[in-house]
């Protein structure tokens, strides 16, 4: 991708941002030699990377290279897959997420997840947002109201739905639904937001809205986003990891990856020669 295009896409001024090399940034998530298997099929091979705190990390790579698998490993959604297993370790804030003393539920409360296909529950808009609190046993009306408003405002949806909070979430438009899912993901006040191709089913206007939202959210949250859209990765992320066939090929500052990748494979993929 030509340098001018990259510059044009980036909204941030290049100078003054706290972008440092992945090795020196304080990682919130540490992936240490992580292998993952679906039955006998190995999907991830010796992944080793650190996800920096309060920054946006993009995972890119051709279809089937294991981006979703890695993302879903972070909040242990892959536990649900029959016959799956892993080797190596992932640490969250220094503590292994596979520690038997650590409850999966409390781990998942620390990470909001936004899926490729928006998946609102068959409930009202309000109940969708406060769902995470409800299942945690929080039923105090005032707390819930406050969280609903804060989360919907943070997801830039409040103005559109504040008069119809009691209506079914399934009546919203696709883009609104996805923002509702983001509101739901941040209602638990997580440290990390995991996003798996959050814009792939949306039109450009809705996509822009979500990208702007990511920009806002990264002030408070660490964000990991899987995307197939190179421009999107360039626009929203601080760090980019390129995966190929289950291996991490290159992980560096987004600018570095897009302007002067050190691996030939990365360059080929970014310039659209394959993938």
């Amino acid at each position, binding site marked *: 991708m030509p340098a001018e295009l990259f510059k044009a896409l980036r909204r941030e001024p290049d100078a003054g941002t706290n972008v440092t090399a992945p090795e020196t940034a304080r990682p919130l998530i540490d992936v240490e030699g992580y292998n993952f298997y679906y039955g006998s099929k190995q999907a991830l091979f010796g992944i080793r990377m650190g996800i920096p705190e309060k920054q946006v990390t993009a995972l890119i790579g051709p279809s089937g290279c294991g981006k979703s698998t890695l993302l879903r490993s972070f*909040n242990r*959604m892959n536990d*649900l897959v029959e016959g799956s297993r892993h080797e190596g370790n992932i640490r969250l804030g220094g503590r292994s997420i596979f520690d038997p003393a650590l409850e999966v*539920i*409390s781990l*998942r*409360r620390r*990470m*909001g*997840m936004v*899926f490729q*296909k928006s*998946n*609102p*529950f*068959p*409930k009202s808009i309000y109940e969708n947002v406060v*769902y*995470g609190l*409800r*299942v*945690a046993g929080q039923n105090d009306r005032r707390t819930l109201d406050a969280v609903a408003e804060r989360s919907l405002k943070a997801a830039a949806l409040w103005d559109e739905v504040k008069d119809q909070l009691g209506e*079914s979430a*399934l*009546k919203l*438009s*696709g883009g609104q*639904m996805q923002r509702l*899912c983001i509101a*739901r*993901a941040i209602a*638990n006040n997580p440290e990390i937001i995991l996003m798996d191709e959050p814009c792939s089913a949306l039109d450009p206007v809705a996509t822009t809205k979500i990208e702007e939202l990511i920009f806002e959210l990264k002030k408070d949250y660490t964000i990991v986003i899987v995307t197939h859209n190179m421009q999107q990765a360039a626009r929203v992320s601080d760090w980019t990891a390129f995966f190929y066939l289950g291996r991490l090929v290159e992980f560096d500052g987004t600018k570095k990856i897009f302007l002067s990748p050190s691996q030939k494979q990365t360059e080929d993929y970014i310039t659209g020669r394959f993938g």
Partner: protein
Amino acid sequence: MLARRAKDLRSQEAASVLHIRLADGRAVRIPTGKIIRYYQPNALSAPERLGMAVMNFWRFLSEDPREANTEGGIFPAIFGTFVMTVLMSVLVTPFGVLAAIYLREYAKPGLWLRGVRIAVNNLAGVPSIVFGVFGLGFFVYGVGSFVDRWFFGEALPTPTFGTGGVLWASLTLALMTVPVVIVAAEESLASVPKGTREGSLACGASKWQTIRRVVLPAAAPGIMTGFILAMARGAGEVAPLMLVGVVKYAPTLPLDGIFPFLHPERKFMHLGFHIYDLGFQSPDSEAAKPMVFATTLVLIALVVLLNLAAILVRKNLRRKYAGGTF
């Protein structure tokens, strides 16, 4: 005392007799005690006749039967059918849904699961009379006599629960219709998208919370379909009921204004059995013919009505969470 008074009344009644001379010159004597109401059809105007017909039909629906069921109304049978069907549906739904949740969400695939599935499917093919025999043996003689011994000991040897009753009849039919509910509920659970479940888990919900709060509401319309099918199957069933609590004439209703309102041990009347009784057990089946047809119509109308009510509920559920996506 009472006997003397009754004899007095009866002789008074016999004393007043209506003498009529018919058009062909015959004289007829009718004791007034046998007259329930009279009218002159030829003297009626059209609207009066219509009113008469409506009144007659209303009496048919709302009155107790007379003359060994061959005359009068069928109200106790309508009411009995209604109570039994509702009770059965209320009993079968939670049971069927729980079974479906177990089969779909918790059971590990394997020999056991396959065995249970086959058993459920076979249950659907068992003739209903066999369920009646089972209900009699298990519910009435087994559970019923046990309950009697423990809770109604002072009433023995007269059985309270140890004989057919509306509760045992409902349970028997619930058992018969449970495969329908299980299959329908399982299908609708399976149709809840994986993404919805994952979304709930990712919010920090446990598996059971996910099922209770997200999967079941999403599957509710499909579960209602199972409920409707079960109701339709159960409401028209007669054969097993004859063994577990339906009677030709029940002096009391299973549900009334006397505490505790629902009397699950009472025997009850049922439209289906009423049809059988009128058409095949009455002394003059030719004379009972109109009653048989009318009762059949009422039975069908009742089933349609119950189904419509359930369909309305389902429509409401659907609309509440309808997705007008994109």
